[in-house]
Each structure stands twice: as C-alpha cells, then as structure tokens.
C-alpha cells in the first residue's frame, strides 16, 4: 500500500516532518484543553485564598479606620464642648481625607506567584502562544483600574503638581492609624480591636 510505503521507505525527512506535525498537533490540542480544565480547577481555591488572606484583613483594617475617623468627626461636630476641639477637628479632617484617597491597589501586597509566572512567560515562546488564548487581568479588576487611572488623570488636570505626588502605601495607613488613635487618646477614648 502506498501509505504504508511512505512510512516504511520514504526519505527520513518526510517521516520526521509528518511525525512532528502529528505530534505537535495532538500535543497542542491537549495543551489547549488542559489549560482550560486546569484553570477552572484552581479558580475557586484561588478566590477563597485571596478573599480570606488579603482582601478581608486589609479591607477591614482600612474600613475600621475610616469608620472611626467618621465617627470622631461627627461626634466632635455635634459635641457641646466644640470650642476646645478645633485642633482635633482639623487633624481628624486631614486623616479622614487621606484615608479616603487610599485605594486597594495602593496597599495590596503583590501576588508573588503572578509576578514570578509573568517573568517565566517572557522567556518561553510556548507560554506566550498560550497567552494569546489566555486570560490576563480579570475583567472586573480591569474596569476598576481603568476608573482609577481616569481619576488620576482628572486629578492631574485640576491639581497641577500636587496631584502627581506618589500613591500612598501600607506605611501611610499605619501612620494614619497612629495619628487617629492619638486623637482618640487625647479625648480620653481608648479603643482596641483585633
């Protein structure tokens, strides 16, 4: 049979080419389906991990600080003895406004595996090809970043040089927490939470 002859007696190069075509075709098809299945198998566990270990603790810390600052401000403003509190009011206002400008993207720690994996992608053509059918940043997150960069743009248009200052960091959050608790201390309010 003719087909058989190609396999048995054809020049080595034809055999090799056919072989390579065959192998890479099936390997790639497998790779494609594997990547989708693998992704789906890990998504939920990743979500739970990011939720519990990063999003919740950081969100809660920032939220508590904002809640305290807001409550302090409203109590100072409604207080009968408001006259002696002017210094505190200004300080609490400053803290509140700085807390208000902090975004999750400013204080979230980098995802080390994501960083490492992105670096691996740089050197590997096969991984790059895989990327083309793959998922970069999730859509929801992307949308939020887009809004933030729009905010930055607007701030720069309005505020000139001051607006180009660097974004806050977790150190700034901790510093604001100290200042906030200092004001509480001055007012004889002792607060603690875990």
């Amino acid at each position, binding site marked *: 049979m003719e*087909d058989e002859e190609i396999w*048995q007696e054809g020049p080595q190069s034809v055999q090799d080419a056919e072989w390579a075509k*065959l*192998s890479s*075709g*099936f390997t*790639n098809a*497998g*790779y*494609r*389906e*594997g*990547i989708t299945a*693998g*992704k*789906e*198998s*890990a*998504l*939920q*566990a*990743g*979500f*739970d*991990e*990011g*939720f*519990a270990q*990063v*999003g*919740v*603790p950081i*969100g*809660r810390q920032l*939220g*508590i*600080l904002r*809640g*305290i600052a*807001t*409550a302090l401000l*409203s*109590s100072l403003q*409604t207080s009968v003895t408001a006259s002696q509190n002017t210094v505190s009011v200004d300080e609490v206002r400053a803290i509140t406004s700085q807390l208000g400008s902090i975004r*999750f993207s400013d204080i979230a720690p980098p*995802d080390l*595996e994501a960083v490492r*994996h992105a670096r691996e992608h740089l050197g590997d053509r096969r991984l790059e090809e*895989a990327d083309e059918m*793959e*998922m970069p940043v999730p*859509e*929801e*997150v992307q949308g939020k970043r887009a*809004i933030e960069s729009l*905010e930055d743009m607007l701030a720069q248009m309005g505020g000139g040089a001051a607006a180009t200052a660097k974004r806050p960091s977790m150190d700034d959050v901790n510093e604001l927490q100290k200042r906030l608790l200092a004001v509480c201390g001055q007012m004889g*309010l*002792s*607060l603690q*939470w875990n």
Partner: protein
Amino acid sequence: MDFDLEELVNVEQTFYEEGYKDGFAHGRIHGSIEGRALGREKGFEMWEELGFYEGFAMLWQVILSQRGTADDRAAQHIRQLLALLAQFPRVNPSATDPTELDIPKLFRQIRSRYKALCAALGVQPTLRAGAPSATAEDSDPAIDLADAPSGGSKSVWPVQPAANARAGAQLSF
C-alpha cells in the same frame, strides 16, 4: 513491519495526554492567580464597608460610655450592630462549611442597623463607606443578591469560570 492502526491511535492519545498534562499544570497557575485577584477585590470591597460600620460603632460605643449614656437607644443599636458584624464570615463560606448562613440578609440587616444608629445619634449616615467612584447600585452586594435567585446554590461565593465572560459578576453572589 506491520502497520498497526491501533498503535497509531495510541500514539495520538499519548501526545494528547502529554499536552493536556502540561496545559493543565499551566492552567492551574493561571486559575489560582486569577481567582486570587478576584477574591482579593471582593473581600476588600465587602469588608471595607463592614469595617467602616464596625469602626463607627466601636468609637460611638466608647463615646457613649464616656458620656454615661451607655444604655440608651443608640447604645442598643451599637450592641446589635456589633453582634451582627461578628457573625459575618471573614472567609468565603463555600470553603468552610455549607451552613445556612444567609449572607445577603445579614448584609441588609447590618446596613439598616447602621442607618438606625445614625438616626438615633442624629448624624448623617455615610453610605458606601469608601470607594468614591462606584455608584451605590453597582457595587452593592445586597442589591446584586436581591436580583439573583439564590435558591439551591450551596457555595455563597461560587466561581463560575469561563462559561461567562462576566465571571466577575458571578462572584458577587
């Protein structure tokens, strides 16, 4: 030499499986990275708001006890609000146990308790504690929940990947 068709099929299968194995391993890395990115955002969004109520309530609690009015109406709202907040999970419940925890209901109760507290204190409630850019409806989990027929689903924040381009929306209950 015999031409064995079955062997060729096996060869195809072997190549496919080899590719699948590599792809699966790579996909797992991407899945867990993407999942973490979504989970972080969701956890932050929810607890930034809940934390706001918590901090607000804690501070008013010490103020009221300083003023010696620790058992009036406001103080009661505070105690109830803090009790509700303590019930709210800090891990995605789908990862732990499928209890009968009604997250949307709890969220609604917390919000209305906060508003009641503000009314009792005579201060203006701050809705949507942080996030200056989002509209209330966009990012309000309780509203998302009210829209979604939530019957039957076991995990509270299930991820439903790939099938839906708006996977993010699925995550918000």
